[in-house]
């Protein structure tokens, strides 16, 4: 955002997008080459090819662990979305509750939620239950905040207009309040979904009997580095896929909104 004119860039430099892919390519290359050439001990950095091969070789184990984790995520999402949605609706519709609770909740946001986890393992053991409740509540908070905001920000003029046209309470909820609140709620579901996913994996890493996080930790303690890296890639793919799915839903839910000019890509 400089105020002075810039001299034109010399033609020798590649375009920005090209540069990006070039650098990315170089990074992957270095990642592959460094351990193989002995610059970095392979036990610290496994080449991507080795990681992928290890994953393919051990496919069954990884698939089973992933399935186990997905199960935990699904149940945790039920808690985060279901409970979060209901509480968010109630808080959003009650001005006094809203004014009192929301500042409290945003203060609590500063606390690292992971500190609750040892309590849950003490109460529920290191099986799936502790993961589900931990991750469920981890995702609960953004869903509540977003739902409350969505309900609160419904344009009151639309409510007035619907009343003037004789809308019943049910019609008001279906025709006005839910569509108006939907974009905010869905963006809350997106963040909540991301936190729940990572919550499950992180909890598995700390103390578990099964799951992809548990597998990563196990491999680390046994110094099976390629397997560790594969596990991490798998989790990234999982989180990315979930986010893309919810992102699609979010876009569908916001189709009627005026689209902002492209601000750049994520």
């Amino acid at each position, binding site marked *: 955002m400089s105020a002075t004119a810039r001299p034109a860039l010399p033609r020798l430099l590649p375009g920005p997008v090209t540069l990006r892919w070039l650098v990315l390519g170089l990074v992957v290359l270095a990642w592959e080459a460094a351990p193989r050439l002995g610059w970095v001990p392979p036990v610290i950095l496994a080449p991507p090819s080795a990681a992928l091969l290890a994953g393919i070789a051990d496919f069954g184990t990884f698939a089973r662990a992933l399935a186990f984790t997905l199960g935990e995520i699904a149940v945790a999402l039920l808690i985060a979305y279901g409970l979060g949605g209901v509480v968010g609706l109630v808080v959003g519709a009650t001005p006094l509750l809203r004014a009192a609770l929301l500042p409290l909740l945003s203060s609590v946001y500063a606390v690292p939620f992971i500190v609750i986890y040892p309590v849950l393992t003490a109460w529920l053991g290191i099986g799936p239950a502790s993961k589900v409740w931990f991750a469920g509540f981890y995702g609960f908070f953004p869903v509540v905040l977003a739902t409350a905001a969505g309900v609160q920000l419904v*344009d009151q*003029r*639309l409510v*007035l207009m619907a009343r*003037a*046209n*004789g809308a019943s309470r049910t019609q008001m909820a279906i025709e006005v309040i839910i*569509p108006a609140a939907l974009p905010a709620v869905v963006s809350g579901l997106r963040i909540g979904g991301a936190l729940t996913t990572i919550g499950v994996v992180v909890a598995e890493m700390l103390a578990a009997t099964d799951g992809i996080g548990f597998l990563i930790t196990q491999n680390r303690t046994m110094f099976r580095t390629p397997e560790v890296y594969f596990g991490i890639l798998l989790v990234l793919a999982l989180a990315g896929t979930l986010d893309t799915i919810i992102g699609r839903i979010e876009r569908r839910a916001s189709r*009627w909104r005026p689209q902002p000019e492209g601000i750049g890509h994520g």
Partner: protein
Amino acid sequence: MTETRTTMEALRMDGAQLMAAGQDLAHRHSNAAAAEIEVKALTHRYAGAEGPVLALQDVSLSVPSGHFVGLVGPSGCGKSSLLMMLAGLVTPSEGSISIMGRPVLGPAPERVGVVFQEASLLPWRTALDNVAFPLKLRGVPRAEREARAAELLALVGLAGFERRYPHELSGGMKQRVAIARGFCQDPPVLLMDEPFAALDEQTRMTLGDELLRIWDRQRKTVVFVTHSLTEAVYLCDEVVVLSARPGRVLERIAIDLPRPRTWEVMASAAFGELRERIWRLIRTTP
């Protein structure tokens, strides 16, 4: 006395306008007995930030059927509140309102249509769906309500825009959709709360003419709140002037200008006099 003046005016006009004026007169005569809207001793208080506020004081009004009545007054005089009470959206502290002989106890969308200042269109629905919205609430089947909505959109000059979303429409177009929606259940009474306030002057004038054109076809009873004295005199048969808060009826000024209202009418001396009269009334009365 109003009829006499109108008849005199009629004698000065040429043939075509005579016809129109005659129709005008006949219409009013036939319904002169039944006051469409009856407001009696309306007083309204509400709880403000610093204690109770008296918004309207002892307002009484009767609007004959088929009249286009304007409601003007200084800011805060309660004209919008009065309209909200006519619409059944606000309950007055004291007094009574009846429309078409029935007391107003809540919104009555088949009898009373409302057009708001901000078009208040549902942003997630197309123009067609927005116009059809009141019919949807009533449970009218889709084919029927979409046909009616398409008809109305054509009436307000938006044929071809049925599938557009509000964010794709200009301010003037949005307000047209809102007007079409107001007409959709064909209510005998139409309440309009500064519907053109958010628009630029040229659009205001175009829409004003459009509104009169549509109104001329079916002569509903219209109560039109506006800040613009020009608009009030141009559009209305009668202008009710409210005082500053607490709002009281200062005067009901008959607008005897010939219909259809045109540029010439607006440029005439009579127009200017009427507007001046209203302005003086507002300005000098505390």
